[in-house]
């Protein structure tokens, strides 16, 4: 499925949209990490929780859990909630 990558993570992917696979959000992020080593830890902490400024949307709906089921054809958007100076 297509995954939209936020600009702060383009140093990993070089492109805004990549293809990744997974039956759950966690599996999808693991596949992303396989393709782009290190990218998962920037989004997910060591307790497997989404980091505070990261937001993940599946087909336009925000999801909070790595166990969220995904289906082929889903559109995943990873968004960075930017703030501060």
């Amino acid at each position, binding site marked *: 499925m297509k995954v939209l990558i936020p600009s*702060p*993570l383009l140093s990993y992917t070089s492109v805004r949209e990549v293809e990744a696979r997974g039956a759950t959000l966690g599996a999808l992020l693991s596949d992303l990490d396989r393709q782009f*080593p*290190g990218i998962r*830890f*920037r*989004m*997910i*902490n*060591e*307790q*497997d*929780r989404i*980091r505070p*400024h*990261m937001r993940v949307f599946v087909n336009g709906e925000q999801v909070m859990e790595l166990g969220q089921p995904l289906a082929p054809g889903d559109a995943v958007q990873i968004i*960075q*909630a*930017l*703030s*501060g100076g």
Partner: protein
Amino acid sequence: MQAKSRRKPSAKKVLVLVATRKGAWFLHGDAARRKWRVDGPHFLGHIVHHLVLDPRDGRTLLAATSTGHLGPALMRSLDRGRTWQEAKRPPAFDKVPEGAPGGEKGRVVNHTFWLTPGHASQPGVWYAGTSPHGLFRSTDGGDTWEGCRGLNDDPGYREWMGGPQDGTPDGPKLHSVIVDPRDADHLYLGMSSGGVHESLDAGRTWRPLIDGLEVVEGFDASQVSMHDPHCVRLCPGNPDRLYQQNHCGIYRLDRPGTRWERIGAKMPRSVGDIGFPMVVHPTDADTAWVFPMDGSMVWPRVTLAGKPAAYVTRNGGRTWQRQDQGMPKSHAWWTVKRQAMTHDGRDPVGLYLGTTSGELWMSGNEGKRWTCMARHLPEIYAVEAALV
């Protein structure tokens, strides 16, 4: 005053590594340390908490980075900063399963704060201190890291470490990881807050070293968690001597003794002995420098009366001398963080300090006269100097 032991002048050049809130800069000096070539920014926009060159090979650089929004990253260079790779497994706490006993919530490394190369006999070994408090060790040059469970998971230490609220305004910091140059198993570290600690078995077990240290008035100095060392340094010229800039004064400890002496009591009363950094001479254990800041009332943590100055002792803290030649005489409200003052190991010793207002200053004659090397940098977090 002359340093007690004159060393052969070094032919090596100085590389100054400046870590800031918005990236890192390298300053390459000429042999005379008068001209500096600026190289940077590296990691523009990233917070660089510490940037350290491995003195054992002269080419491996580790950079502890984070951003305001992404998780932390530990970057490695094997060619002195020309190219960088991300550590495969950066410092991170163990995952705690849901429903763990006692409602235990897993800890999360916000950032790596401190980096220390291991003992000369252990190439590839590094130590990292994190925020919140955690000690991590790498045996492969910083590519993968393991937690030191003897500290991180010890119930007593977990209590002394406190929670995320029990530290500096930017979070608790584990810092000043020191390896005894005579014994790879002998380690020291500091926790802000949480005290100074020592291990004799390569970090498997630890014990506090807080005797003689004062705490904020009204609190109990026997409580380890109340202690706030800001910067601890071991003297290479005499590894039995430690100096410390603490939240509550400047101290010296001579081992095997275990009681710190408040040598800051000999600082001028109008200046006091509060600050963050502490620098020790590379060969003369009687010589050390501090950069006092205002610790009154709400703790402004800027130069006293807007008149910056370093202070040096040449006799182990019995007396102190002001060193402000070349620095602004007024209206200079500097803050110098605990990692932002260092020396280059040359003879005479070069001193370097960076301010949170983005100025980098140096003295090529052990503090007698200071010059500004760079200004208009972002907020400086750390300054390290290496001979290359």
